[in-house]
């Protein structure tokens, strides 16, 4: 059976599992784009910068709602932020256990929540800078910039994590976030 499944060079083998729905993928790459634009290309004082910030905020907003009502792999329940799961995951990795998580793995889940919260914090401090009450107040601006630094650090870590897990699990995670499917290598457990 395994032989035949492998030889039937079809569109999707039985081990190609759809995990990321189109909404998640759109949000992921649009959010990446907004961060790139606002961080690197758009004048920080401009109105464009504010609008892109609002767009980033609403992207996270839609994703959070989707985490409540979306399909299985999109839900918070599929990747709860749990230190216990993280430590179990790390121990499993050290043991050489190669179980594959269909949604985020426990470490990836932490990064996901971290990036959402960071983007929200940047959005909120950014919005505060436009209000009369907080306009020109130093600590708000400093917070905005410090948190952006944290975001850059998180993104670097996120990319490193994706590279590491792609190497460890053999599942190309970047491809999964583009096509929505995780290609699970032969004979691997999934969770």
């Amino acid at each position, binding site marked *: 059976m395994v032989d035949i499944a492998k030889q*039937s060079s079809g569109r999707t083998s039985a081990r190609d599992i759809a995990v990321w*729905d189109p909404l998640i993928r759109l949000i992921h790459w649009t959010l990446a784009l907004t961060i790139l634009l606002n961080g690197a290309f758009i004048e920080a004082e401009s109105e464009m910068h504010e609008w892109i910030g609002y767009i980033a905020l609403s992207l996270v907003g839609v994703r959070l709602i989707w985490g409540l009502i979306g*399909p299985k792999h999109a839900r918070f329940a599929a990747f709860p932020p749990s230190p216990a799961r993280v430590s179990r995951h790390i121990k499993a990795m050290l043991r050489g256990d190669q179980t594959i998580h269909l949604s985020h793995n426990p470490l990836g889940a932490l990064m996901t929540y971290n990036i959402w919260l960071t983007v929200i914090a940047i959005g909120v401090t950014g919005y505060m800078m436009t209000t009369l009450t907080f306009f020109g107040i130093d600590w708000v601006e400093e917070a905005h910039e410090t948190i952006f630094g944290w975001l850059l650090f998180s993104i670097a870590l996120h990319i490193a994590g994706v590279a590491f897990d792609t190497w460890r699990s053999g599942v190309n995670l970047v491809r999964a976030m583009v096509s929505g499917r995780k290609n699970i290598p032969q004979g691997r457990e999934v969770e």
Partner: protein
Amino acid sequence: MKLTFWSTKTKERRATVLAGLILLQGLCALFFIGDVVEDFRLDGHLDDPHLLLESVAAVALVGGVAFLMLELRGLLSRMSDMQTGLDIASGHLAEVIETFFDEWKLTAAERDVAIMILKGLDNDTIAQMRKTAAGTVRAQATSVYAKSATDGRAQFISLFMEELMAGKMGPVDAEVAHATGQNDDSLPPGHPHSSKS
């Protein structure tokens, strides 16, 4: 199969379009909510018709987003159900094929040739893919037909078509076929399922 594949693609496109609409509408909703909040902060009246209209638009957009999200979730879950069904069907067919090949005691080379025959390749193409002479492939194919007690390509393929159309793709069937085939030598060699059908 072709038809199902096509409609899967259509569904995927629909899902992508829905997702795009959700995002766009979400942005619009945010724009109107922001505008309402801003206007209210500036003049503090909620009875202004302009503001009222904007509030209605905001509420409608939020409702629309929620509705589209539910719609998308429904579509995605139908798609995943269908995919599961397809996987089971193709998985079971592969099992049935494997069982048949075991019954007929095909050699590794004959298995390859048999699978390529099932996929609709002619002998010359098979020879090219396996980098052997066309005569070798012809001999292997003849041996496959002989072992399966069929008189040629068409009948060989129809063995599996029969299996598909009879809807006998359950693993239980395959196992039963396997067991009976091994224990009962009086069965005709060609059809492992003949005792059941």
